[in-house]
């Protein structure tokens, strides 16, 4: 049974939407900048260097070789196992998220290449209910790792998530275990898993799959941590430092391997993947 009015699963392609605006206003410097130039500049403001928020499509486009994208996701969409309703019913939230993002779920899963090295890559979409991990995202991540095993290639996961999807209750919580279980298989197969943490990588995602990368690279400007400021304030009313849960904080406290600027991310990935590639040296 499907909870949606229409079939809501569809293959993602990276073709540009027709109604794109030509100009963007930078939140940081206030300048109107030509969108095409922003795109060509890794979605960084050409005027002041501010990072524009990336959708999952834009993110994956910024990382993989041109024309190498192939959606390899499973044809699944969210169910509503708890019959969850807060201010609005969960199915309605899902439909709105699909409409807003043009994606069937909060993750894009593709086979692609980075600097000619084949990978399976998952990229989370923060604008889809906060990039939260429910049963669909958990399954797609597992499926992605299994595809990587099938194809004998590395798995790359770019996280942008507030954590577990509350509307799926214990099922969402247990995706932490599920993704970890398959991650252990990937390790047994000796295939590299590169975890890229972007803004934000928090909660149940940070406390499971994202923190289990062989290599963990954070994008500059990422937010990385388990409990948010609000929870900490309400539970223990503690003063928190300015750099709390920034990528610099994560690096300083040994949570990640490296920090990369957005424009360096692709080349860093290429270099690391190249090192792990068999038979290249």
């Amino acid at each position, binding site marked *: 049974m499907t909870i949606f009015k229409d079939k809501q699963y569809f293959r993602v392609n990276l073709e540009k939407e027709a109604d794109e605006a030509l100009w963007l206003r930078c939140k940081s410097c206030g300048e109107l900048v030509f969108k095409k130039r922003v795109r060509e500049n890794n979605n960084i403001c050409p005027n002041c260097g501010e990072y524009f928020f990336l959708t999952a499509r834009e993110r994956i486009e910024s990382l993989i070789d041109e024309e190498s994208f192939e959606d390899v996701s499973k044809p699944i969409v969210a169910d509503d196992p708890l019959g969850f309703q*807060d*201010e609005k019913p969960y199915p309605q939230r899902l439909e709105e998220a699909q409409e807003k993002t043009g994606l069937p779920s909060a993750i894009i899963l593709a086979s692609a290449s980075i600097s000619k090295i084949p990978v399976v890559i998952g990229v989370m979409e923060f604008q889809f209910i906060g990039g939260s991990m429910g049963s669909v995202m958990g*399954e797609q991540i597992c499926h992605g790792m299994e595809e990587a095993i099938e194809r004998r290639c590395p798995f790359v996961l770019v996280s942008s998530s507030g954590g577990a999807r*509350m509307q799926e209750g214990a099922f969402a919580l*247990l995706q932490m275990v599920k993704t970890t279980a398959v991650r252990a298989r990937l390790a047994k197969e000796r295939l590299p898993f590169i975890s890229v943490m972007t803004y934000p990588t928090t909660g149940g995602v940070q406390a499971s799959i994202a923190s289990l990368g062989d290599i963990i690279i954070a994008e500059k400007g990422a937010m990385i941590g*388990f*409990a948010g400021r609000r929870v900490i304030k309400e*539970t223990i009313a503690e003063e928190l430092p300015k750099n709390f849960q920034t990528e610099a904080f994560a690096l300083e*406290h040994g949570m990640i391997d490296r920090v990369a600027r957005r424009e360096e991310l692709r080349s860093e990935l290429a270099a690391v993947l190249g090192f792990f590639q068999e038979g290249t040296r």
Partner: protein
Amino acid sequence: MSDERTLDLLEAKIQELRELNKADGLELSAEISKLERKLAQLRTELYANLGDWERVRIARNPKRPYSLDYIGEVFSGFYELHGDRLGGDDRALITGLAELDGRRVVIIAQQKGRDPAENKERYFGMVRPQGYHKAVRIMRLAERFGFPIISLIDTPGAYPGLESEEKNIGGAIASSILSMLEIEVPTIAVIIGEGGSGGAVAIGAADRLLMLENAIFSVISPEGAAAILWKSKERVKEAAVALKLTAPDLLNLGVIDEVIPEPLGGAHKDVSQVMAAFKESLVRNLADLGEKSVQELLTQRYERYRKIGRYNTLSD
């Protein structure tokens, strides 16, 4: 309408009459049994159809048996082991060696405090990274010698604070989940009170997941869900219902394997009864898992978690 206070008053009254009866040889038996019937009826009315929010309150009731109570009553010879060997010893997560029905096991348990001083020491059962590091160390120890692992879950959640984040609480939880999945001995997790989010899952990824009847297991506290999803702290009762966090709900959803029954009103109303049920379930599940080869155990554990989740499959 009856509430807990009425029950307590009635109980006290019956006790008083019993003592009078004994001391003065008065013939109060008829009166006593009448009151006892009344008490039983009121108790059923109050507790039989517990709402989810009432269950949350029972799960958090400070009179409820905690891990150390089960450890002292159901296991024998508990020998606590301290320290993560990395510079810390978290008192919210205790570990040690013990025997269950003559079988050697290793215990990993979350422990709340009974009074303000103990709660300060045990951080109200909220585990910090050093607690999960200790858990992982003890899992490896158990594996080395083939001791099954019994993990007792009772935490509002992992400790949220600067100290935790600086020591990568998220990474510690992830490592603990990974160890639970890889460990080559039988594992049983029992949620005895609060199963709060990632902090509970860290030691909950077991071959068997059991729950006390009035325990809760949730992705977020009802208070947290109310604040985020309903944008009002007043809506906790609705949140508690919506989250499907009770043992009967989770059994229905296929998330847990078994519900360990509690007396009406909660485990604290008849501790020996709940201890007996707890022990019976643990011994039986352990015997069952003990018959499996390591390979079977790992395969079944993998399949259990690989398939968890609910979604709709559509054709392309």
